């Protein structure tokens, strides 16, 4: 009987701790990755972008609160994969050097030499560990850092992109948490044959990228397609991003979207207009006139603050700097007024998602809390019947002079002891499950063919597996209280028992 009560407490403590840790860890990972992918504050003017961003970046980086800033172009496009599949992707035009200062870009690069197996790769089967490939991996890594790739046919270095590791579907994620690249992909031909295409993108693979270029007013007009060689692949750990993002050099995006530097010309309205050629002195049809230079533009500037800076303060500082910047380029860049809402912290940007996860965590905890609250009743029922069983003993103790409170205390102490043991076991069990949750999940997957944590729904490839000590303590205390609470009513019942009846009880 007492073991049942202990198990009830243990189970509820363990479930709450597991749920809370995983959901809380989920939120934490979400928040952290949000920050490491986009920096602290973004200044963005979508589609058309804004000019003189270099100046803005210099001004930003001059501030002691700001660690770095980088220009990017963010847009959507179609990607044509080696097997001719077409997918919608997020395209990020980046300047890899400054981008790495603001985000953890180089950390996310997947194909690079590593010295030690990753945490879950127990048999060390990661190809990146293979000394045979160290040279190649080092090359892939430096390609990713420069966003270039050597074309072996022409002998020329070409500008290249970095794909999310899940985009092609040709990198098979193993249970060890690593990727096993396929040597080949397949592509169907119209005559019914199948053609092999390179499967490992960094080694000679390329993709087609199609975007809509913009006219001078920022309206998308013509589709533009380019073939982009792939230098490497990256893994951010957020499935949505790894499945549908490509990094390309900033200049390529500027060219494709026509956000690059361009001459501004005065178009000739009248087709019959003429002018004097200053060289020959003869009249000729009037030519369009260059009236100025349209500077290159980007859609976004990402800002990283120095460590420990208050996020909102940084955002306000960035806005201040933007106001100074706008004063210099009045009329040439978006007004400070319109920019007010376009300068946002990563928290604001991810607010919907973060809040959704927070609410979800709250809801799940609430449900499990109620479920666990039933363990109070379980303990109550168990203690009730234990006390019924011990009626005679209670009578004996009373006959030997025990007071009513003394008898009640006995049961409450017993409940506390059971609660302490149950909660300790539950916390330990919960802790053990959480830190091994990925292994357990994989084992369930293998044994029952079940996938509970599908990265497509949960964003992350790995289930968060950290236990916050504060949470563990709270859950432990609640577990003990559950048991104490459950034993309270039966304890009072035992105290109120008539000792004579208790003694006569058979």
């Amino acid at each position, binding site marked *: 009987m007492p073991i049942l009560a202990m198990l009830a407490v243990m189970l509820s403590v363990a479930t709450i701790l597991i749920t809370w840790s995983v959901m809380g860890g989920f939120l934490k990972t979400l928040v952290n990755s949000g920050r490491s992918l986009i920096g602290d504050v973004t200044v963005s003017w979508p589609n058309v972008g804004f000019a003189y961003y270099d100046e803005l970046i210099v001004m930003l980086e001059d501030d002691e609160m700001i660690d770095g800033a980088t220009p990017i172009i963010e847009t959507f496009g179609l990607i044509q994969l080696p097997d001719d599949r077409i997918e919608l992707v997020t395209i990020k035009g980046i300047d890899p050097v400054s981008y790495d200062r603001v985000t953890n870009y180089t950390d996310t690069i997947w194909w690079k030499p590593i010295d030690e197996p990753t945490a879950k790769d127990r048999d060390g089967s990661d190809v990146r560990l293979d000394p045979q490939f160290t040279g190649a991996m080092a090359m892939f890594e430096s390609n990713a850092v420069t966003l270039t790739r050597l074309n072996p046919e022409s002998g020329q270095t070409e500008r290249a992109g970095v794909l999310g590791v899940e985009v092609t579907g040709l990198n098979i994620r193993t249970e060890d948490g690593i990727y096993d690249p396929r040597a080949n992909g397949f592509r169907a031909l119209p005559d019914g044959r199948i053609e092999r295409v390179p499967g490992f993108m960094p080694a000679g693979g390329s993709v087609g990228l199609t975007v809509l270029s913009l006219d001078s007013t920022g309206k998308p007009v013509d589709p533009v397609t380019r073939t982009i060689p792939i230098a490497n692949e990256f893994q951010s750990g957020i499935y949505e991003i790894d499945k549908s993002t490509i990094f390309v050099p900033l200049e390529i995006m500027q060219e494709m979207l026509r956000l690059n530097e361009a001459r501004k010309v005065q178009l000739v309205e009248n087709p019959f207009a003429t002018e004097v050629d200053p060289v020959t002195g003869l009249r000729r049809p009037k030519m369009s006139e260059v009236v100025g230079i349209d500077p290159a533009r980007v859609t976004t500037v990402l800002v990283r603050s120095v460590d420990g800076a208050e996020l909102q303060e940084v955002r306000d500082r960035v806005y201040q700097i933007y106001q100074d910047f706008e004063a210099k380029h009045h009329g040439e860049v978006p007004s400070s007024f319109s920019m007010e809402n376009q300068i946002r912290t990563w928290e604001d940007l991810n607010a919907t998602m973060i809040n959704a996860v927070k609410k979800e965590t709250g809801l799940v905890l609430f449900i499990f809390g109620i479920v666990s609250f039933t363990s109070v009743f379980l303990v109550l029922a168990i203690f009730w019947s234990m006390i019924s069983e011990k009626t*005679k*003993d209670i*009578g*004996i*103790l*009373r*006959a*030997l*002079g*025990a*007071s*009513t409170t*003394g008898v009640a205390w006995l049961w409450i102490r017993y409940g506390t002891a059971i609660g302490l043991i149950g909660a300790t076991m539950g916390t330990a069990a919960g802790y053990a499950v959480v830190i091994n949750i990925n292994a357990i999940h994989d084992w369930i997957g293998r044994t029952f063919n079940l996938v509970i944590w599908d990265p497509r729904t949960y964003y992350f490839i790995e289930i968060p597996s950290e236990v916050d000590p504060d949470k563990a303590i709270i859950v432990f205390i609640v577990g003990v209280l559950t048991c104490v609470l459950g034993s309270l009513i039966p304890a009072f019942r035992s105290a109120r028992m008539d*000792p*004579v009846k208790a*003694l*006569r009880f058979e």
Partner: protein
Amino acid sequence: MMTPQSKQTPQSKQTSQNRQTPQNRQPILQVKGIRKTYHLGRVKVPVLHGVDMTVRHKEWITILGASGSGKSTLMHIIGGLDRPDKYPEDPASIVYGDRVITDMGAAALNAYRSTEVGFVFQFYHLLPELDILQNICIGSMIRYGRFGYRSKRKGVEARAKELLDRFGLSDRIKHRPAELSGGERQRVAIARALINEPAILLADEPTGNLDLKTGESILDVLAELRESGGLTMVMVTHDERIAARADRVIRLIDGRVVEQTGVGSV
């Protein structure tokens, strides 16, 4: 060690001057007009109709009555475990020494049960989870409380072992009650009743569950206790032969006491 005289009980005042027959000694317990009616729903079950009796120091009294005559009820009331019915026009009282048990509050009654009286029951009523030694010491734990008991523990355990030794159970200290025979269990129960050196031992059919021979040996133990320690004993039985061992027999008939003279002891 076992002498109740060493305690501040009412009897300690005159044990030395009174070495005559028990009938001449000072009363230790005076019971007057005790009535008890049980209620089974609406049905009243009158059990005791005004019991009067006096127990003297070091006296061995046996209450003899048929089964269901209210002997246990009377014992519970004397032992402070139950209370008699209240009739303001005809007040009942139990006086122990100079204290009125029937007027005591719950805490005082707890203390009375713990230190002044010792209970022995027909069905031993040992705690099955505890070993023999713990079963005996539990009375002291209750008396001194968990923390108070710590400092007393050594002395109490020594006394418990001494009692077990005396009852021939010293090799059973670590056994559980279930591993003991009925007679052995009853001796453990007697040891438990004596651990706090009470003035009165209340034994409710202590041999009722034992065969004749074992029952006799239990009675020998009780007799020996009274001889050596001068314990006052109130014993309940429905068996005439057992009653015969006492100094005095009280008959409980129809909820009233019919007193008899001593059956030739002392």
